[in-house]
């Protein structure tokens, strides 16, 4: 059992709640070694169905196409596709093949993994507004084809508003997944919207 380090509860703090607060903070050593803690590693597997709309989107990716859907009532063209308009609550009216170009709505330069281990080569996640959609409509993907690893080097090449183009896996290697697009890379000249 733990050797508890009772936090010195300061006599009447100069601020509320004015009573000694309870709790027993542990340091790293106590947590790793001396505390009666147990561990468990969950093992579960899920087999997710992609759904009616996303299945068709994934089929498109396999063919090197980005699809969107349009609702005639609100006039929006959106991607990722969905079976129904979440605002008008009716089926979407048509499928539209979008371009595989777009604009960086926002991006980040991530230097850590989810468990806070350093990444030598940073990831550059971004929201890409896809050409042919309603304003500010896009999805999460990665930016690639960028040289350098520092914030300064990367920001020299990547900025909000930058035109980008999808870099696809070779057709034989595509599997009908969002990763059939390897990443989006900066383009110098952009096609007309």
């Amino acid at each position: 059992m733990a050797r508890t380090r009772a936090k010195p509860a300061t006599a009447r703090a100069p601020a509320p709640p004015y009573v000694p607060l309870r709790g027993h903070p542990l340091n790293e050593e106590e947590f790793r070694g001396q505390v009666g803690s147990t561990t468990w590693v969950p093992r579960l597997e899920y087999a997710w169905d992609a759904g009616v709309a996303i299945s068709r989107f994934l089929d498109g990716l396999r063919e090197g196409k980005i699809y969107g859907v349009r609702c005639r009532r609100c006039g929006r063209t959106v991607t990722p596709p969905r079976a129904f308009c979440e605002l008008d609550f009716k089926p979407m009216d048509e499928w539209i093949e979008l371009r595989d170009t777009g604009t960086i709505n926002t991006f980040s330069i991530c230097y850590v993994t989810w468990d806070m281990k350093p990444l030598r080569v940073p990831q550059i996640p971004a929201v890409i507004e896809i050409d042919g959609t309603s304003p500010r409509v896009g999805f999460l993907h990665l930016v690639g084809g960028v040289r350098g690893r520092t914030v300064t080097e990367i920001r020299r090449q990547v900025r909000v508003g930058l035109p980008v183009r999808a870099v696809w896996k070779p057709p034989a290697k595509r599997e009908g997944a969002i990763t059939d697009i390897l990443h989006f890379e900066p383009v110098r000249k952009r096609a007309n919207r």
Partner: protein
Amino acid sequence: MSLIKRKPQRRVAVIGAGLSLFMRRALDTGKELAYYAASQALQTAGIRLKDIQAVVMATAPDAFDGVHMKGEWLLDGAGGVGKPYLRAYVGGGSGVFSIISGWMMVASGLFDLVLVVAEEKMSSCQPHPQGAFLTIFDHTIERPLGPNLLWIFSLEQQRYMAAYGIRNEDIALVSVKNKHNALAHPAAQVAAHLTVKDILDSDVVAWPVHRLMVSPISDGAAAVVLASEQVARRLSDRPIWIQGVGWCLDTSYWGNRDLAYPRYVEKAAWMAYEMAGVTEPRKQIHVAEPYDPFAYKELHHLEGLQLADRGQAPEDLARGRFDRTGELPSCPSGGLMGVGNPIAAAGLMKICELFWQLRREAGARQVPGNPERGVAQAWGDLMQIGTVAVLGVR
């Protein structure tokens, strides 16, 4: 357009508040932490558990504890045994949503005394509680890209900065202010005297977010006692009234949203303001506790709460408007950036702070003047919910 059908007739007051310490990792279990805060809230309200008619418990993902249905598991620590019991859960928005849920129970006329408890124990989740958030992303079109929680916040911060030409120095100032404010908070986990340079010298975790712009992993609990008007007047000489509540969620297609402005927070705020009779928030709100799990979020939320013009919160901050002694003190508690972020408990801690501030009991943390009305707000899920409560002295 009106956001509420009619103003509820039955008034609800906060009559007691309690906290545990906020800690990086606690020996104490979630039940024990909840018990500390709940028993303290009952004590300050001058009542006992048997007087409580119903209990609300807020706690964020089950994945933190590795205990499915942890609301039920925490029941005993929340004082819910043998009573109508409800778990309020909307991610990071849960802390303020808990008081909204409790308010509904009392305002509806169902109960006169309701205990609201919020608990979070993040430290159990190994190797890092961020793992609990890996599954908030769409399994088919997002997770194969390997996203983590830092991505979405750094993306949102960058969009906010790009839309209004905000510099990272302006945002770092939130960390400086809140960590400094927290020096006067007895529960605080990460209070410190730091400069903007210290913040920007800390590692970049996901540019533009630096390590000291992120709230810590925390264990802790908070609790309040809610009472109907008649009971509140009998039990308390200084009840603090819940004048308005509001909440709102935006689409889960977050790549289709304007990330520069939290319109769902605006909608939630107007709902609460309308109920509270607030038409000019900047004049009628005297103290604010917006949600600050990341430094930029406080500014983002002050704008959503209509307490600053869009893109102008950083400038207001720089000229001291949001200091504890400023024109509109914001996060006088020290917020999540200073006191800590045991998720659901952090939101309810903000309600506790308004309770003490409005009773003018906040001691070393007291904002000057005679604050009569405050707003607390929390936020969460997939950057999509705003939960808002307006509290006042009458």
